[in-house]
């Protein structure tokens, strides 16, 4: 009888625990071009429904190897992504490009280390990942629940210091990785798949959504956006939001950062507090962007503070 109880408890455990088994993030890869896939993140703030999976993840399958772009927010997310990739191809996941250190793009790294994937990430961003990672992990766990971050660890890892641009061959599939220093972050990586003429640009470009700028050098970022617009590409995968095919959509990001930067500079020159700007209500300009309010309230004080006592 006691044994039977144990079986029942065991079964109940499995029946009540399915939310954290196979596909916790409702991941559905979109094939944007042959053998180039994207998981579009939830275009919302981090919350306890999306488990932090708010940014886009990509993977490219060559004839010998697979490259993944961005690790996502957690071990769990990375595990789910890897399971899905394995269902498309049994080639090894040889490379992971982490476009920058922000949690929603990097916290799945520990899973890729387990499967011996080579991590490609800008040195300055690895430093930030190590320096701020645990703090940010703790905050995220507090805010949306630690079950989302099961096994997620921030540890230093071996990565080869490389000269950019990096050229990789996945097997009749050439990839170029370029470094954009001190733009949206200290070192954003962008990935170009030559065969499909697809560009993965990380958070240098946000689709529809308000760009976040807590670690940004806005002057450089604007120049980089001009460069990205001039580049040759057919498909552009932003760090957040939908796939971009029209160059004008890249300007959305530029317009936002120009506006918030100008507002912050004027405020700091006149000693105006962000609170006083907020009190006047939201400027009409920002209303066309998703997550405008949240981003405006979060980033404007940071920027004003940065310029204020410079």
């Amino acid at each position, binding site marked *: 009888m006691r044994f039977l109880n144990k079986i029942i408890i065991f079964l109940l455990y499995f029946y009540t625990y399915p939310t954290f088994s196979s596909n916790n993030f409702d991941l559905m890869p979109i094939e944007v071009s042959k053998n180039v896939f994207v998981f579009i993140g939830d275009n919302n703030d*981090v*919350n*306890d429904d999306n488990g932090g999976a708010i940014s886009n993840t990509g993977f490219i399958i060559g004839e010998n190897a697979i490259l993944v772009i961005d690790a996502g927010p957690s071990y769990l997310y990375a595990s789910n992504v890897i399971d899905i990739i394995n269902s498309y191809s049994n080639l090894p996941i040889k490379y992971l490009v982490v476009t920058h250190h922000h949690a929603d793009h990097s916290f799945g790294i520990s899973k890729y280390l387990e499967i011996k994937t080579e991590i490609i990430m800008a040195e300055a961003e690895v430093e930030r990942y190590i320096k*701020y990672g*645990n703090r940010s992990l703790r905050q995220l766990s507090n805010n949306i629940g630690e079950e989302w971050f099961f096994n997620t660890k921030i540890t230093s890892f071996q990565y080869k210091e490389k000269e950019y641009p990096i050229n990789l061959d996945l097997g009749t599939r050439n990839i170029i990785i370029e470094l954009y220093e001190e733009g949206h972050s200290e070192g954003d990586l962008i990935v170009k798949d030559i065969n499909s003429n697809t560009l993965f640009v990380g958070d240098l470009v946000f689709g529809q959504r308000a760009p976040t700028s807590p670690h940004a050098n806005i002057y450089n970022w604007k120049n980089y956006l001009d460069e990205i617009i001039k580049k040759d590409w057919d498909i552009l995968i932003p760090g957040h939001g939908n796939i971009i095919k029209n160059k004008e959509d890249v300007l959305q990001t530029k317009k936002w950062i120009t506006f918030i930067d100008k507002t912050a500079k004027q405020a700091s020159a006149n*000693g105006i507090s962000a*609170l*006083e700007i907020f009190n006047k209500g939201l400027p009409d300009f920002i209303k066309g962007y998703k997550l405008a309010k949240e981003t405006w309230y*979060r980033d404007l004080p940071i920027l004003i503070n940065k310029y204020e006592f410079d």
Partner: protein
Amino acid sequence: MAGPFSDFKAGAELSEELSSSPTGKRNTPNSDSIVQSIDALNPKNSEIWYDLQNNLLGKDINIVFVDDIKLIMQDYIEEAHKVPLIVTLPKRLHNFKNFVLIIENNPIQQAMAIKPYRPIEALGMNIRLEDDSPVRAAVLGDNGVWYIGSKMVFVASAGGCSTPACDPSVEICETGTIGKIAVKQYEREAGAERIKLKITHPMETGFVTDVQGEIIPEYFVKNIHVDDNQGPIADITTFAALSSDPVILLDLPKKGQSVRIHAKDSLGLEFFSFKKNNTM
């Protein structure tokens, strides 16, 4: 006016955004919070307010809760170690005699007190919030009455006083220099002026433990004297409920000339925004 920062009233008005929980904190404020905060702001429902009033403002005082002292701050705070706040005063209180900022649910409930020598229209600071709390600005008018403006604030991650702002067990922290003062003066309309000052200081609360589990002793700026070549502007008493590297903002109706700062901390160190041989 809509929006989470529209709270120009001292009452417990929360915005729609807040009720719909934008960042998904567990137990984030929701529509019940409006009821909660109306309750919490009512001093009759507070178990601690009358003790606080006696201890910080004095016994047998005349006290009036008003809604024209505006506490401008966010309803919902993500970073509880550094919470900006601006208090605007109605004209009848520009000649106030004393100002005390009280955070009810903090382990350090008083953030600062200001005794001004000249009229002040508005003031601002960065504070720490341990948890969701009523924040109250108590202003002593020249008629001897204390006027209280209040605002309810919710925090996403509690522990603005008891967790380290930079935790060496989870990140690499850099300690800056102590006692570097920056003063900025900004012109406002009609000859009015805003003074902003910042002092680099850890403002240790005495409630934080280090990696070895030892309590980091309290260590904070205690006094800030603000003056210009016309004489004193304000004496400010400060506590560790102000954030590290505290920023203080004063709006004066008349422009000060070459504003200077002299501060002292709880270990007796003195800091000057000017060369010391210019006697104060």
